[in-house]
């Protein structure tokens, strides 16, 4: 049987990428600053997000989508900070994709939301392949996880914009080598901004709020931001 070659040259995740692009355009149009959060399970994503939501809610309108394989626990926890929380339960799927995000946003008035956070499923591998249309992606690394996580999971660190080192209140007890962690992050994602926080004590959170407010201002008033 003879065969012939057919050129295709198509990105496998084209559908997801197209949908993510449409979401990104929608977020820009509505003036919503959208931030994705990725990390391994147990790195303190939800505690960090709880602090972010309650801190920002003082002067901004906030909302969050939280992804997990099962349970509504995280959403219930975050609703203490804002009622605008929706849980995405993925079943067996180890990551969020653009379609899940689009569906979860149904009937929400984005023009009434300043900051939307999308907490991905706790996983340092799979989420790196899926664009969710977010403007910024935070990758979290907890002080209790060890400094070499960035070297072990370079793709997710490289696909993120800001690294947040969490649980800094436990750094000393865990003998966490901050300089090594920073070096390793720099090695897999040269030039990435790194912030250290403790959601428990609140240390370092102000720098995150400042970064987010600056990002929102830039998104809404690009011409002003260019002068500053």
């Amino acid at each position, binding site marked *: 049987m003879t065969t012939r070659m057919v050129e295709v040259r*198509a990105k*496998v995740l084209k559908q997801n990428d197209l949908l993510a692009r449409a979401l990104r355009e929608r977020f820009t149009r509505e003036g919503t600053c959208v931030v994705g959060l990725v990390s391994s399970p147990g790195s303190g994503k939800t505690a960090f997000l709880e602090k972010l939501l309650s801190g920002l809610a003082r002067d901004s309108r906030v909302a969050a989508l939280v992804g997990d394989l099962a349970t509504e626990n995280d959403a219930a926890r975050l609703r203490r900070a804002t009622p605008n929380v929706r849980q995405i339960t993925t079943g067996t799927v180890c990551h969020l994709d653009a379609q899940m995000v689009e569906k979860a946003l149904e009937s929400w008035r984005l023009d009434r939301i300043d900051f939307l956070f999308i907490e991905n499923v706790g996983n340092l591998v799979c989420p790196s392949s899926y664009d969710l249309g977010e403007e910024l992606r935070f990758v979290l690394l907890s002080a209790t996880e060890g400094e070499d996580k960035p070297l072990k999971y370079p793709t997710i660190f490289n696909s993120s914009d800001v690294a947040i080192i969490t649980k800094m209140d436990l750094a000393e007890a865990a003998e966490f080598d901050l300089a090594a962690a920073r070096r390793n992050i720099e090695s897999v994602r040269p030039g990435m901004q790194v912030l250290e926080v403790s959601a428990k004590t609140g240390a370092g959170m102000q720098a995150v709020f400042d970064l987010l407010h600056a990002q929102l201002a830039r998104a809404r008033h690009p011409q002003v931001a260019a002068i500053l």
Partner: protein
Amino acid sequence: MHELSIAISMIDQISEESESRGGLEVEVVHLKLGIFSGIDKEALLFAYELACEGTPLQGSRLVIESIPLVIYCDACEKNRVPPSVYQLSCPDCGTPGQRIVTGREIEVASLEVVA
């Protein structure tokens, strides 16, 4: 393990491609897979076979071409292969490389179909 999701996306895409060309009988699928894509080659081969079952692609073979990680070195003004996937710097001058040229691909390159 999101290789199964990737395999399903691939099959959807190839089926679409096949339909738009009036129905193709696909024997071999050639995929370009960047080593910095976050996708494991062996796991994808395994997932592909599973995902093909009961679809028109059942019995087709997946051939994966690994694409190396290449970064652009601003200092040398050249494309360079970094020392490893966790050390994104120029192997010659050591300058950190922020721009990835290749290595993230997950792309169906071509299909071998019955003539």
